[in-house]
């Protein structure tokens, strides 16, 4: 494989890829992706959004309906899965129950004709990498879920592929184990300089692990960006709602300038930052992060409203409040638990506010 690498090409490229299983519904639509060498690239989206389908097309188990997929600059549509040299970690491990852990790992080496003496050493080394030293003779059925997942990862790495695909590898594990393995996978990826294409529907996992994330919705990519950009600068309403918490206010544009627009909402005018060229009269969705809203003295913020505190919840490190503002009766405010906030009580009338840059005007998708 390595002999044909074109350095200027991205490691994996999807160009205008469509996929339909039944000829009617498009499961993936007009997909463009460029995954750079050494990147930890995550496909994130709700269930049924087409993530696994993309992975299967890349691995060679499904054919794209149209468009082109290249690995190392070479189109792969005629290449069977076994010749793509991709390590793959399946959603439910897919360990071979009739083989021991050691045999599972040496299987890809055997079919590549690697001599037995080398195999044992490589199996041992790879098991050590996932911290399962000496587990060679166990059966997959005798391992815990976390251990099985480690074996599955080791098996996908043992033949030293440069590209590894993982389909919700941590989906079946409990939270603590998941976080532990997130670190480990990330460390291994960086140590070996792997290109990883990772699938998850857990946005926190995607944010924690990825170099870049592609957010999927109904088979279409909404936005491809680093976790920070996705969080701070969502470009689509779906992304704003899917990544972290966002309060959404809806209204019509009254006037729009470069860098600022005024939006008419049921509760009054709101000044916002338009992420695209919106026109007066257009419907927009305003996204405001709960932690960017503050309790205000008059004239601290560009947008300020007097509201009744409908609920207040003590969550330890922060306070969570619910108010009705600008037509959204479920507007959440998150305040850090610092001295001074203890004074407000449920039912109090308070003044809240947020800045222009913390209020992004996005195309309304409702």
């Amino acid at each position, binding site marked *: 494989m390595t002999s044909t690498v074109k350095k200027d090409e991205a490691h994996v490229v999807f160009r205008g890829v469509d996929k339909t299983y039944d000829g009617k519904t498009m499961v993936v639509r007009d997909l463009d992706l460029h995954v750079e060498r050494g990147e930890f690239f995550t496909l994130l989206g709700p269930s049924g959004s087409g993530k696994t389908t993309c992975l299967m097309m890349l691995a060679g*188990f499904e054919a794209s309906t149209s468009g082109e997929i290249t690995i190392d600059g070479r189109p792969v549509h005629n290449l069977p*899965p*076994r010749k793509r*040299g991709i390590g793959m970690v*399946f959603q*439910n491990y*897919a360990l071979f129950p*009739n083989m021991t852990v050691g045999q599972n790992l040496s299987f890809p080496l055997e*079919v*590549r004709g690697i001599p037995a003496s080398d195999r044992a050493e490589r199996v041992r080394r790879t098991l050590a990498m996932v911290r399962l030293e000496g587990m060679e003779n166990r059966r997959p059925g005798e391992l815990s879920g976390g251990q099985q997942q480690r074996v599955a990862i080791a098996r996908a790495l043992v033949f030293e592929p440069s590209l590894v695909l993982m389909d919700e590898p941590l989906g079946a594990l409990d939270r603590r184990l998941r976080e532990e393995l997130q670190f480990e996978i990330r460390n291994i990826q960086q140590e070996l300089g792997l290109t990883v294409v990772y699938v998850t529907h857990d946005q926190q996992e995607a944010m924690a692990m990825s170099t870049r994330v592609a957010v999927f919705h109904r088979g279409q990519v909404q936005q491809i960006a680093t976790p920070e950009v996705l969080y701070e600068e969502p470009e689509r309403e779906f992304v704003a709602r899917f990544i972290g918490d966002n309060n959404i206010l809806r209204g019509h544009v009254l006037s729009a300038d470069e860098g600022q627009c005024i939006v008419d909402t049921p509760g009054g005018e709101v000044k916002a930052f338009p992420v695209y060229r919106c026109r007066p009269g257009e419907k927009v969705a305003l996204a405001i992060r709960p932690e960017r809203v503050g309790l205000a003295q008059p004239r601290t913020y560009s947008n300020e409203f007097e509201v009744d505190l409908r609920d207040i919840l003590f969550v330890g490190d922060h306070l969570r409040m619910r108010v009705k503002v600008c037509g959204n009766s479920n507007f959440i405010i998150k305040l850090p638990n610092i001295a001074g906030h203890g004074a407000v009580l449920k039912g109090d009338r308070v003044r809240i506010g947020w800045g222009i840059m913390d209020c992004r005007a996005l195309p309304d998708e409702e």
Partner: protein
Amino acid sequence: MAQSLRGARIRAAALTLPLVIFITVTFFVPLGSMLTRSFHSPQVADALPRTLALLEDWDGQSGPQEETFRTLGEEFRSLAKQRKLGGVATRINRLESGMRSTILKTARKLRRDQPESWREAMVAADEAWGEAGTWRALRRAGERFTLQHYLNALDLDRDDAGRIVTQPPERRIYLPLLWRTLVVSLAITVICLVLGYPVAYLIANSSPARSNLLLLLVLLPFWTSLLVRTTSWIVLLQNQGVVNDLLVAIGILGDDGRIAMVYNMTGTLIAMTQILLPFMILPLFAVMRTVSPQHLRAASSLGATFRQGFLRVYWPQTLPGVAAGSLLVFILSIGYYITPALVGGRTGQLISNMIAYHMQQSLNWGLAAALGVILLATVGLFYFVYDRLVGIEGMRFS
């Protein structure tokens, strides 16, 4: 608490009682009585009690006492009056051929007159009475518990000195037949596996709708009677049958070169394979359904060809189904009766046809029972070997 639990358990056990009674009455009792017949035959002993009592002290070499001749003659006479002599003679005849006619002839001669010397009269009627071997056979036929049926069933016999010897090759019947039955059953099992495995794979890996349809097709033969299916094979395979006609019509065979595919072993093989195929497919399917299709994908993503993935990953996981299906088909075919009886002709008969023959035609139930026991033991042996090799509890039937 413990009491109510025990009550529930007793009630649950009571619910199975009708079945237990049914099985006992219709299965275990007849089976037991049949098995008993294989070594217990009191008929001759009950018919000739006094003679046999006298023969007990006899040295087995010289001619017996006059007293013994007289007693036997009188017992023959009274049996003839009760019209039981024919049955007794038949039984004795099974040990020593010729005895039936000897006995009946003698009894006819002795019917009226009261002889001076019974010995002379009987030897005059048939000189066999002068030979010690005849009396030894009589004594042996009078044993209540006997291994004779088993000796017969294993093609063994006793010589004049009472030692067990094998029958001369031309008189061996049952062991070659048992061997043939095993070989044929094995062949049917292998053919069913080869034919059934891909079908089961297809069913297990199709969409639910298609898999249901295929399963229905597999079960379809069960909707028609076994008799109908077997006889339709005759229609298909006979000399003037559909298959031969077709082969002649498209010119593969000449009209005088028609293949004999029925009333021989070929017929038995073809028809039994078709009839037993579902018993292979269903256990295979049951196991394949539980094998994740991901495994084959995983294998190919790891660089294996389909062949490698299949042999190393898929096939080993389906072994419990292979074992269950093979054992089922093998055991069913070892004891199969109706199909070979109808399409087997003379050369396509199996051991169970021989058992049926002794049950219905020759009326030698003791021998039929002994053959049945040997068949049962053979099946048990295979089950045991299987258990050692594969492990019965690891096997899945559904």
